[in-house]
């Protein structure tokens, strides 16, 4: 019988910041006790990720007064006075895991392969498919240019035709791709296609690549089997990719469990929560380089990575993709456009800076709204039901029906929206996080909002995934307890009626019955945004929408439910969907200032 784990140190090496948390057993449960962070040190002059880890841990030491380090080493196990029992880490620094996937039909096996790669926490650089419209030599050039960390090849149902998947294998062989890091090892290739082709695949790719064969990702059209591919990707991530990045060999030797790619860890945690509470969840992690969105609708998990939408390294790309006007529409003051683009450019080339002035903060949060909005559009397009499963149709028909899969994302069904990543988790006021989430995701009906206050989901995700028998039980208990008690900050609930309504007209009557029996009535009018402070406690709600307006029970249908407040409270959003802002600058600024005031978003002063 192993002894109870008393202390856990977990770090997450992000592309900008390395965060460390200390979890300790306190009386009867695990609690987060201290945290620290430091810039990630993959950059010169350090070029060693462990420096940033040590800095972050040093901060934890300073704050907790506990000795964790012995020089450049983490002391394990805890001897009662110093050290920690276990140390785990996730990582997205060094560019994360960059993959290329290939499938026969882009919207079928191609998409399944993409889902597996994304679910494992990778960035998908490109999806090759027999029907992607590119000529073989174009595909070959693309493979050579991209130099992925690994390739996932799928295609064909088990026992079906092997020709197409073999053609893809031959293209790979002709490209003879080199891995991104390190000249001296072969590129890892995972084959997860038609079983019947396995021997021929070995013949074609066995020599030139480091080939692994796993079960078919799409054994039959109606079924997706992502698990074997995902697991294999995780193994290879550790063996190949991590081992090549600066300082990672050292970091790997310190940890008690394999280092997980950050998004893989977050995804597995979100999946666990949705399952445990039987709800629909959207989680977002907006980072420096990328924005990840995770969702569980109808029990189906999806993850997308918007590889070039982020708040530092990719900040200029948010500007390029959304356009300056779309960013500026959220800014309630006039600003010189060229001066603004220079400022944003400077954030890109010096990615670790933080907004010191209020003006800088408002601009940064305006950009975040656009990054989130664009990422969510991409997510909705990807999170669909399986395409091409209608059994009546032939495969050639399936080629034509690329848009047949319906998006699983239904904002009216969404129960919980969780935000994380610096700009959401570190916003000086929680009202700002709530506003960014609502403005970008535009929830409908009744939706609970939360943020991962200190971005702990990656660390908790890796804890929940520990495999070692002697650590498993305590680690997953710690992950769940800390998640419930310390990780999620419940912001409150957003009530949004939607439908055709005239400006300023009534959309719904809301009756709130509080725990002490008191009752309050509220009218939601089109174009308004109101907030009522109320802690994370149960409130009975009755909503009577006017004709043509829906709050979740159907147009004009009354709805009874139970909702919860939070650190922000209850938000009544009458700004129909999609939220539209006036083209007139004065009117737009007026609305923005009113909405900000209604939720006490920014400090009162000259600007607000």
């Amino acid at each position, binding site marked *: 019988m192993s002894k109870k784990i008393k202390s856990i140190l977990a770090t997450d090496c992000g592309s900008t910041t390395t965060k460390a948390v200390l979890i300790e057993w306190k009386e009867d449960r695990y609690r987060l006790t201290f945290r620290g962070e430091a810039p990630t040190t993959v950059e010169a002059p350090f070029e060693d990720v462990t420096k940033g880890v040590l800095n972050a841990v040093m901060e934890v030491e300073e704050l907790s007064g506990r000795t964790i380090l012995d020089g450049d080493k983490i002391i394990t196990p805890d001897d009662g006075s110093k050290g920690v029992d276990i140390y785990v880490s996730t990582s997205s620094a060094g560019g994360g895991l960059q993959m290329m996937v290939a499938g026969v039909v882009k919207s079928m096996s191609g998409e399944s392969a993409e889902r597996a790669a994304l679910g494992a926490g990778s960035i998908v650089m490109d999806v090759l498919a027999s029907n992607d419209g590119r000529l073989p030599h174009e595909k*070959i050039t693309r493979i050579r240019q991209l130099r992925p960390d690994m390739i996932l090849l799928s295609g064909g149902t088990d026992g079906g035709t092997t020709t197409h998947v073999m053609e893809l294998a031959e293209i790979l062989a002709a490209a003879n791709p080199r891995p991104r890091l390190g000249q001296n090892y072969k590129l890892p290739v995972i084959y997860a296609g038609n079983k019947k082709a396995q021997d021929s695949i070995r013949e074609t790719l066995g020599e030139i690549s480091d080939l692994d064969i796993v079960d078919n990702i799409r054994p039959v059209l109606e079924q997706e089997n992502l698990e074997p591919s995902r697991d294999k990707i995780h193994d290879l991530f550790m063996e190949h990719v991590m081992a090549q990045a600066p300082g990672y060999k050292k970091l790997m030797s310190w940890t008690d469990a394999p280092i997980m790619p950050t998004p893989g860890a977050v995804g597995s945690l979100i999946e666990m929560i949705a399952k445990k509470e039987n709800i629909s969840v959207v989680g977002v992690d907006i980072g420096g380089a990328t924005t990840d969105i995770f969702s569980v609708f109808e029990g189906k998990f999806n993850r997308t990575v918007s590889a070039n939408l982020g708040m530092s390294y990719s900040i200029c790309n948010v500007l390029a993709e959304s356009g300056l006007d779309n960013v500026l529409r959220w800014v309630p003051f006039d600003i010189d456009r060229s001066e603004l*683009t220079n400022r944003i450019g400077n954030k890109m080339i010096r990615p670790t800076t933080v*907004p010191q002035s209020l003006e800088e903060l408002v601009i940064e949060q305006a950009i975040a709204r656009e990054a989130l909005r664009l990422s969510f559009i991409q997510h909705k397009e990807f999170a669909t039901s399986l395409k091409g499963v209608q059994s009546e149709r032939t495969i050639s028909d399936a080629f034509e029906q690329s848009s047949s899969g319906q998006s699983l994302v239904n904002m009216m069904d969404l129960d919980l929206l969780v935000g994380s990543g610096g700009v959401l988790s570190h916003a000086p006021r929680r009202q700002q996080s709530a506003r960014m989430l609502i403005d970008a995701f535009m929830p409908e009906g009744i939706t609970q909002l939360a943020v991962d206050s200190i971005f702990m989901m990656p660390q908790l995700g890796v804890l929940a995934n520990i495999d070692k028998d002697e650590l498993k039980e305590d680690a997953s208990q710690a992950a769940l307890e800390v998640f419930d008690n310390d990780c999620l900050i419940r912001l409150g609930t957003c009530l949004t009626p939607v439908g055709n309504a005239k400006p300023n007209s009534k959309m719904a009557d809301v009756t709130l019955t509080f725990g002490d029996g008191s009752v309050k009535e509220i009218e939601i009018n089109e174009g308004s945004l109101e907030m009522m402070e109320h802690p994370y406690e149960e409130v009975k709600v009755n909503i009577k929408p006017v004709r043509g307006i829906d709050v979740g029970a159907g147009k004009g249908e009354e709805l009874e439910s139970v909702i919860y407040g939070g650190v922000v409270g209850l938000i009544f959003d009458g700004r129909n969907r999609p939220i539209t802002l006036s083209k007139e600058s004065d009117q737009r600024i007026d609305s923005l200032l009113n909405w900000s005031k209604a939720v006490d978003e920014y400090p009162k002063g000259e600007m607000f």
Partner: protein
Amino acid sequence: MAHSYTPGLKVLKKTIFKKERILPLKGDVLVKSGDQLTPDTIVASTNLPGNVQMLKVSNILNIDPKDVVEALKVKERQEVKKGDIIAETSGIFGMFKSSVESPVDGTIESISQSTGRVVVREAPIPVEVDAYVSGVVDEIVENEGIVLKSNAAFIQGIFGIAGEKRGDLLLVSSGPGEELTADQITADMKGKILIGGSFLSLDAYKKALSVQVAGIVVGGFNYYDLKAVLGYNLGVAITGTEKLNTALIVTEGYGSIPMSEATFSLLKENDGKAASINGATQIRAGVIRPEIVIPIDAGNTDDDSSSKMPEGIQEGSTVRVIRSPNFGKIGKVISLPAELNKMESETMVRVAEINIDGKNILIPRANLEMVETE
């Protein structure tokens, strides 16, 4: 004493500069350890595999993939010329034959019986790697290239465009706060590397392109002008492959920002000397910053950079503010308080107390950059 790690850019008067010069694929190394190199010396060469053409022989001949072998007129590894018959059906009594011709000169790389495809690879593409900087061969990386060593002054910029260039340094701006203007750029500056002060306008850069200046090192450039130069909005800072005659290295950032005193005076000191520069920048995994390398006379080979490890910001360090307000200003660290401080934005951060122009102000540590000088 409290200290904090902050990435800084190098401005080194004298250092032992080492650089890998490696082929993209294995090949031949053409120099020996200890050989003297000029920037143009070819140190290694190889042949990149040529493009491939995939011929769907079974489809074109309308036969089964497994029957392709019978129809073939060529073997694997056989050389073919454009128009050579690759495969042919026997037809009916020798009539109505159909055939597949090679679309290019090349070699038959593979023949697939499962897909009925024949792969023809075109002639290899020769690739050479030069020394880039004058110096000596320090180390041979077998079949891949060399590590070059040179006594040099070394400066990193914050952002650049276009790849490796070389030329003599030419001081144009008289001070670090002075803009480098279009009318200062003249035809006799062809092939030179111009040293400017605080700013370069789009017009001035276009003028430099037109007279074929090799490179420009300057404090600031407008972000939105990049679109006019590159033809697209630069979304992520990954550059180096732009086909531009004039490399641009920005040392401070976007906008008009005086070049740091240390950088400017080191460049000024080396006015007229031959230099190699590279605008390639990658602000992401495995960060690459643009660089200016100025080989200096051998003799004293003391390395004054690698002997001291960067120690991060400490009390007394010279730092630069890298975000508004006070963007670009240089100051000295007075103290590094351990507790979190609230900024105007209400952000709680760890700060440093900095003396700038005689005034002590609190600035987030994350908004400071160490100015690394010898």
